[in-house]
Structures are given as C-alpha cells and as structure tokens.
C-alpha cells in the first residue's frame, strides 16, 4: 500500500513551497501549513486524497492558494474527497457535491445540477433612493435615453445627438 513515493522536491514544487524549503514548520503561515499538509498527504502518491476542511481559518489569499493546489491535484488525476462548510468552495472545486445534514446525504450531484434542481430562480434586488426620482439630479427614467446622450456628460446634462 505504501510502496509508492513521490520525490520530495516534486512535492514541494507542486505546492509552491520552494522558497520555504529551509523554513521551520512553526514559522510557516496558516496557508503555507495547509499547503504543506497537502504535500504530506501526497507522499505515498495516493489515488484518493482526503482533505478535511483544508481552508478553514485561512485568509482569502491563503484560501485561493490552497484552492489552486487542489486544482493541481485534480489535473494530476487524483480523486480529491474534500469536506467543507464553504459552499463557495464546493462550487469552485467540486465535480460532485454531496450535501450532508444531520449525518445523512440529502442531495448529491454536480454543483450545476443541484443549483438547477434546488436553487430556485435568480432575484433582482432593487435598492430605492430615499427621495422621489424627480427630486434627484438624475433625469427621469422616461427621459433617460442613453442611445441619444453624450455618455461623457451623463447624468448631469441631457444633450441629445
């Protein structure tokens, strides 16, 4: 089971940690520790990699770096089994998503399939101005004809072409 080993230099390169090769683990940032964790998980060149909430507690940059490392695993042909509480992460990375509630899978499919089936429709959100439209500096909606206006002067003048 553990006969296969990847080259350490290849692993370090895979997770972009070449510059930190001589650094102590304790001195690495949270994001770099996570990437090192991914590298350690790959030492035996597994076909399936289990990652348990790999981006929890990471700042946005570290999260995106980790996402890129996971995308690279997919490109390498690895099957990545990832648990996450971040739906955005699942939507970004997963080919198949299983939603677990109270220990049971309640839905499974590609992100697109699940969104079409359970996501409902899109919503247009309109935030209104406090003053009535006529009282504001902008032209009324009926008067506003962008195809007849000089775009550089909108919305302060209403010159027509």
């Amino acid at each position: 089971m553990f006969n296969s080993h990847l080259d350490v230099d290849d692993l370090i390169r895979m997770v972009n940690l070449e510059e930190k090769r001589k650094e102590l683990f304790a001195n690495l940032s949270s994001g770099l520790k996570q990437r090192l964790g991914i590298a350690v998980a790959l030492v035996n060149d597994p076909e399936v990699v289990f990652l348990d909430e790999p981006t929890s507690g990471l700042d946005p940059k570290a999260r995106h770096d980790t996402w890129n490392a996971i995308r690279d695993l997919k490109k390498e042909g690895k099957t990545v089994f990832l648990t996450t509480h971040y739906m955005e992460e699942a939507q970004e990375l997963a080919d198949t998503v299983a939603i677990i509630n109270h220990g049971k899978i309640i839905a499974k499919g590609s992100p697109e399939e699940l969104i079409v089936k359970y996501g409902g429709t899109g919503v247009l959100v309109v935030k209104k101005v406090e003053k009535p439209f006529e009282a504001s500096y902008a032209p009324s909606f009926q008067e506003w004809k962008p195809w007849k206006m000089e775009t550089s002067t909108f919305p302060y003048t209403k010159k027509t072409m």
Partner: protein
Amino acid sequence: MENGDIYVPLHKENDVMEAILALGEEKVGVKELEIRKPSLERVFLSLAGKR
C-alpha cells in the same frame, strides 16, 4: 419588499428588462440594482434550512 428593498424573482430572460421598465413607469428612484444568481449556498439553505 424587505428592508425597503424590492425583490423581483427572475424566471425568464426578459424579466430583468420588464422589471426595470415597470420601475420607470412607477417612477421608483433606483439607487442600486443587483442580480443575485442562485448558488450552492442557496441550495444548502433551502435543503438544510436557515440557522
């Protein structure tokens, strides 16, 4: 309506344009428009319930 904002469910391609025209006809002053597309987050909330 929620917090004074107007929420228009979108079912067809033309719905955005029709909604904007209707706002104009009603002379509703618009500060900001946002289209929220369905997401996996929305799927999770609809299946597992809001907490």
